């Protein structure tokens, strides 16, 4: 960690504000809901920075803002020193492969009309398609016999592994893990977490993990930010946070989860 802190940050989010229009009627935006309210954080290469908070606190909105899926009201998102909020759509599209998301809902993360091989055909060069597909699938613990399958023919764990393999196929530097194991059963949960730990080591990946599940946070996180109502209450290294939470909300949150 200390060595990673001396490196240049891979992602730097400053004073991020995201809001959504609500009550959209007849084309007139009457109200706006503040989803993220002045969030700032920095992630260093090889690190796993985790945002923890209850559902609806704005965690996923941060991921959507980094990916450019929602409009940022104010603030900057610097990825490898480039401000993503100032990039043209064309330049942002070129940069996109370096930041890959893995979403919670693996059932909807794959195009239901595409075979697994077609998914990789979109990202891999034609002459390397077969060899790299096999390599990617084996790196996430899948055999090549699934390449002719459609997503509905795979189990939940297999789908999430394919999602990971697809993300890896474009050689990302940063993985945005949005509750990646929440809807998986316990045995698959463990397998996917082990896979993430191993991928992080072997591919030197950086993670931004979003979760309300402290089990995965405990296994993966280096630093943790506690989020409530669109704001960070505190940011600390995991061990410090668990031993010495500063905020009452964090104490309650940790207590509730340990009781479960």
């Amino acid at each position, binding site marked *: 960690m200390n060595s990673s802190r001396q490196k240049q940050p891979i992602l730097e989010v400053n004073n991020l504000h995201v809001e959504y229009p609500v009550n959209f009627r007849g084309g007139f935006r009457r109200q706006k809901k503040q989803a993220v309210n002045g969030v700032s954080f920095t992630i260093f290469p090889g690190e796993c920075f985790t945002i923890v908070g209850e559902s609806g606190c704005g965690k996923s909105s941060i991921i959507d803002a980094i990916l450019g899926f929602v409009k940022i009201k104010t603030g900057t998102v610097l990825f490898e020193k480039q401000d993503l909020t100032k990039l043209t759509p064309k330049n942002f599209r070129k940069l996109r492969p370096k930041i890959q998301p893995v979403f919670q809902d693996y059932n909807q993360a794959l*195009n239901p009309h595409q075979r697994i091989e077609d998914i990789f055909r979109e990202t891999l060069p034609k002459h390397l398609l077969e060899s790299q597909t096999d390599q990617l699938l084996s790196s996430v613990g899948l055999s090549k016999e699934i390449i002719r399958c459609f997503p509905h023919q795979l*189990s939940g764990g297999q789908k999430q592994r394919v999602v990971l393999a697809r993300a890896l196929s474009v050689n990302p530097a940063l993985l945005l893990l949005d509750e990646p194991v929440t809807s998986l059963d316990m045995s698959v949960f463990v397998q996917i977490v082990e896979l993430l730990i191993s991928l992080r080591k072997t591919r030197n990946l950086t993670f931004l993990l979003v979760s309300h599940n402290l089990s995965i946070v405990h296994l993966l996180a280096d630093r943790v930010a506690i989020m409530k109502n669109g704001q960070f209450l505190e940011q600390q290294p995991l061990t410090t946070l668990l031993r010495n939470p500063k905020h009452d909300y964090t104490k309650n949150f940790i207590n509730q989860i340990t009781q479960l």
Partner: protein
Amino acid sequence: MKILPQKTQTNQSMTSGCITIGLVFIFLLLGPLLTPINHTSQNLSASLQPPSSSHWMGTDYYGRDVLARLVFGGRITWIIAIASTFMAVNIGTIIGLFSAYQGGWIDLIVMRLVDVMLAFPKLFVVLLIVGLGASSTSLLIWVLALFSWMEIARIVRSEVMSQKNRTYIKSVRALGLRTPRIVFIHILPNVLGPVIVSSVLLISTIILVESSLSFLGLGVQAPSASWGSILNDGRIDPLGTWWLSVPAGLLILTTVIGFNLIGNGLHKQLDLKKIV
């Protein structure tokens, strides 16, 4: 490695629809083998002959062979219906895709335009335009298409709206794919199911509209024929000249029911796939 088997289920609606339409199609395709007589050949001395060995389905006022006219008229009716549907589906799909993917004000304006067009009674407007213009088959195809795309656009738009924010679209956007690829390779195949069902149902609607227009004398013009115009020939004495109106009416009915059954079957089939 567990791979779930894909379910296969029989679909009675689809099967019966395909058989019905298949039979009508064979009739239209092989009809000339049944009667060598040209559908426009007149023989006034054999006017209004009931079915006989020389004219299997009798003759009309001008002594023209009704069977030959049913075959030729059916082909015209089918061509108009399929061509209009094809055009309407293309127009509706492109407008629906564009409107939903752009969103915001563009979507709002396009959809209000659709609402305005849907507010007009289709048959009345088509009747007016065809009545004012010089009636021709190509004009009929265009007018029918231009007043039938709205339902398709609405369906496509609602499907795209639901698809474009799904996780798999977010994922492929994150991969850096270009917008046309996302729209045509990822979104379009996932909205085609309801479009196909609506298209099949639209064919039967257009057959009915075209037959109505031809029945009123505004559709296909003489000496050409369509099922609607043949039906009109038997209008003066429907009981005395039943061979003019009954076969044409039955063919319209059978075709419409057939396409509706296929549409219904496709609907079930596509729902089944979603469950699997």
